[in-house]
């Protein structure tokens, strides 16, 4: 099973290499390579997933030492710090295959495969067709690698690769300035979160000396981190907060949610794959993996508030959007907020279930919206309408997914959302200071049902607003319809809880998911304190009724407004003009970040640093160094000229010439003189020899 995991993420990686290097020359630009690779991954992941469904438990692991560095730690330090065992830094990486991994593998490979299949239709004839498949294959490989990672280090690497793929794919239509800006915005915004995440990762290394999940869980249970601090705060709180910041960046949570709506500039399958189903859920998956740290670090209430605020604020904005993909983008932010809120209130299983169900129905919604955009060549819902008859299969798929996201019984979203809301309500009842969390959650549930049905009615019902576009609309080919139908089929609650999805009342309830997650919790050492059993039970009952009422209310409100036109949307728009303006401007977050934080803060700081660079580094240090060098140069030049050249070199010449001049005096050329001189010399030498000391 573990060996299969290697192939699961290697196949898309191989597909990426082939596509990026050869894709252009292959028939059909090689799209079949990616599709087959993802099908292979899915078929390999399926037995793993089915084993979890049937036996309820899978736990395998494999790891090897990737990097082993000897550390230059003196022996005296080691003897004085007995906790540090070996002066070697070992980076072990490997695969952790447990229940959450298996469930995620099943979901991710399935979504990736279907979206690859859909892309073969949607992207047909586009420029750089092969590179599109290369990118989404690389993305799939990274996501699968992230899911199977047994440590936060490779998790983070895959996380960053996904960020890069996201950047490349948002800016895929690189000739559109808005797409380029959106890709840069997405990359820079997530960078804030990623930097924090990396700081958290370093904190983990400081505290635990490892980033392996199992070892961290053991370390936590062994109280290894107690009493340790980083930057004056408890180490676990610091790490937990930083990991949460990573999630906030990647999963587009408040206050870093601004990038996700802009990311809709990318092709629609990308929105479905990356910005709805998988990558943004990666942030939630991180919270699931590191839940024990978050719990021990006491950051769960902050996470709950972040999630609740995100869920509500994004749902509000979704109500006023007219771009079909923007509605879905805000709905994604909102639903991710639900998951984060679920984690925050301790509804671990519910949040994880919502991650899975949301991925399936949101992928379906995005693919359907892709089909619609492909059919009418616009993203503006005000130019759509009456597509129900033209695209019946797409309509049915989208309706099912919409019912799922709105929280209607018999559909998957109901199961998971109801549990999250139940958990939030129980939390609010238990800690009444935190009552805002369930209130925001329920308000978002009402809004979700409203804006999703608004989308359905504006797109598929009512009269056609643009005759030309309407007459040219047609149903999509099989490779685009089949994925949407399959995904909508999986948006039924029967797969996750039972035919109706109502917990406790369903005669044919299935428990595989609960069992699997319970086993996973035991493995991770998560002992969720369920609080008052009585409160929890009654909270779930209230939440069930309340969410049913709210979903119905939302749907009815949308029906009256956008189908029956009993309520005028325009009238309410003018009546609530201030609120409407705030929502259309997305709470002025972009303006806040660009005009205030970037222009007033970062730009000033940037200019200050630039000035420092110019005045101090450049002028004083660089130019100053130049002056010093010039001075030294002049001195050495003078020394060379005066001392070496004149005295030594020329001096040698003069001495030689003078010696030559003196000796030349003797060279008269007169042999007889030479004889006299040599005779004198001989005589002198003889006298010296005879009379000299013996």
């Amino acid at each position, binding site marked *: 099973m573990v060996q299969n995991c290697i192939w699961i993420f290697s196949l898309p990686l191989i597909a990426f290499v082939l596509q990026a290097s050869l894709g252009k020359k292959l028939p059909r630009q090689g799209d079949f390579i990616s599709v087959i690779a993802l099908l292979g991954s899915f078929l390999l992941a399926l037995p793993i997933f089915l084993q979890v469904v049937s036996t309820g438990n899978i736990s395998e692991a494999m790891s090897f030492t990737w990097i082993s560095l000897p550390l230059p730690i003196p022996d005296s330090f080691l003897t004085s710090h007995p906790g540090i065992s070996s002066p070697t830094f070992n980076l072990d990486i490997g695969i952790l295959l447990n229940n959450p991994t298996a469930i995620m593998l099943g979901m991710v490979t399935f979504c990736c495969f279907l979206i690859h299949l859909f892309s073969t239709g949607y992207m047909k004839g586009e420029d750089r067709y092969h590179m599109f498949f290369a990118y989404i294959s690389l993305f799939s490989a990274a996501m699968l690698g992230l899911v199977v990672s047994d440590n936060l280090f490779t998790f983070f690497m895959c996380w960053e690769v996904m960020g890069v793929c996201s950047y490349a794919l948002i800016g895929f239509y690189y000739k559109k300035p808005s797409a380029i800006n959106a890709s840069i915005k997405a990359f820079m915004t997530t960078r804030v979160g990623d930097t924090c995440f990396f700081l958290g990762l370093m904190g983990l290394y400081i505290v635990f000396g490892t980033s392996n999940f199992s070892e961290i869980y053991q370390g936590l249970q062994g109280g290894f981190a107690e009493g340790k601090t980083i930057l004056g705060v408890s180490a676990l709180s610091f790490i937990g907060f930083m990991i949460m910041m990573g999630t906030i960046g990647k999963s587009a949570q408040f206050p870093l949610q601004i990038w996700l709506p802009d990311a809709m500039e990318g092709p629609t399958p990308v929105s479905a794959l990356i910005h709805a189903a998988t990558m943004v859920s990666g942030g939630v998956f991180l919270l699931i993996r590191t839940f024990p740290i978050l719990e021990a670090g006491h950051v769960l209430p902050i996470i709950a508030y972040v999630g609740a605020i995100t869920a509500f604020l994004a749902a509000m904005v979704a109500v006023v959007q007219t771009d079909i993909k923007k509605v879905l983008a805000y709905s994604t932010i909102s639903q991710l907020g639900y998951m984060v809120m679920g984690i925050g209130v301790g509804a671990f299983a519910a949040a994880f279930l919502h991650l899975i169900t949301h991925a399936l129905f949101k992928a379906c919604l995005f693919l359907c919206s892709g089909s619609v955009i492909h059919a009418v060549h616009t993203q503006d819902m005000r130019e759509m309408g009456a597509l129900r008859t033209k695209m019946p299969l797409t309509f049915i798929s989208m309706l099912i997914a919409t019912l799922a996201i709105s929280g209607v019984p018999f559909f998957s979203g109901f199961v998971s959302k109801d549990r999250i809301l139940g958990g939030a309500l129980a939390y609010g009842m238990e800690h009444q200071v935190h009552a805002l969390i369930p209130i925001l959650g329920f308000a978002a549930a009402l809004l979700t049902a409203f804006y999703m049905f608004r989308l359905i009615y504006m797109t598929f019902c009512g009269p056609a607003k643009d005759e030309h576009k309407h007459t040219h609309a047609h149903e999509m080919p099989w490779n685009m319809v089949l994925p949407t139908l399959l995904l909508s089929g999986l948006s039924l609650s029967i797969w996750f809880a039972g035919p109706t999805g109502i917990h406790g009342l369903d005669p044919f309830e299935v428990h595989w998911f609960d069992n699997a997650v319970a086993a996973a919790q035991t493995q991770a050492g998560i002992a969720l304190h369920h609080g008052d059993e009585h409160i929890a039970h009654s909270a779930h009952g209230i939440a069930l009724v309340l969410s049913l009422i709210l979903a119905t209310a939302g749907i009815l409100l949308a029906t009256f407004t956008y189908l029956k036109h009993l309520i005028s949307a325009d009238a309410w728009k003018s009546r609530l003009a201030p609120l409407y303006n705030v929502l259309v401007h997305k709470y002025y977050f972009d303006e806040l970040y660009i005009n205030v934080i970037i222009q007033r803060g970062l730009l000033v700081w940037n200019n200050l640093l630039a000035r420092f660079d110019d005045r101090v580094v450049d002028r004083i240090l660089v130019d100053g160094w130049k002056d010093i060098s010039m001075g030294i140069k002049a001195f050495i030049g003078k020394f060379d000229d005066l001392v070496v050249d004149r005295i030594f070199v020329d001096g040698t010449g003069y001495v030689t010439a003078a010696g030559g001049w003196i000796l030349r005096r003797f*060279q*008269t*050329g*007169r*042999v*007889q003189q030479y*004889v006299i001189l040599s*005779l004198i010399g001989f005589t002198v030498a003889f006298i010296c020899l005879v009379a000299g000391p013996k």
Partner: protein
Amino acid sequence: MSFLDWATGLHGYLFVGTILATLGIIAVVYRRNSIGVLLGIELLLNAASINFISFSKFRTAAIDGQIFALFIIIIAAAEAAVALAIILRLYRLRETIDAGEANLMRN
């Protein structure tokens, strides 16, 4: 010791050799004529020969010095041939055999 004894002994021969050598040196140094210089050299060589023979006769029983003298005579003949050839060349070049004129190596 009578004068005759002194004159026929080692010292007498050495005295003759010394006079010959002195005359030879004076000839070598002061003669303008190259032939005269050559003759001076011959006198020097003969002075050396007389010394060798005297020491051989009066100081040892061996005849080494006399053999040296023979060699010196042979060398003197060869040297005279070479020197005369040089003097001929000098005469061809300068139309004179004045030793002072052979000063191309000056300075």
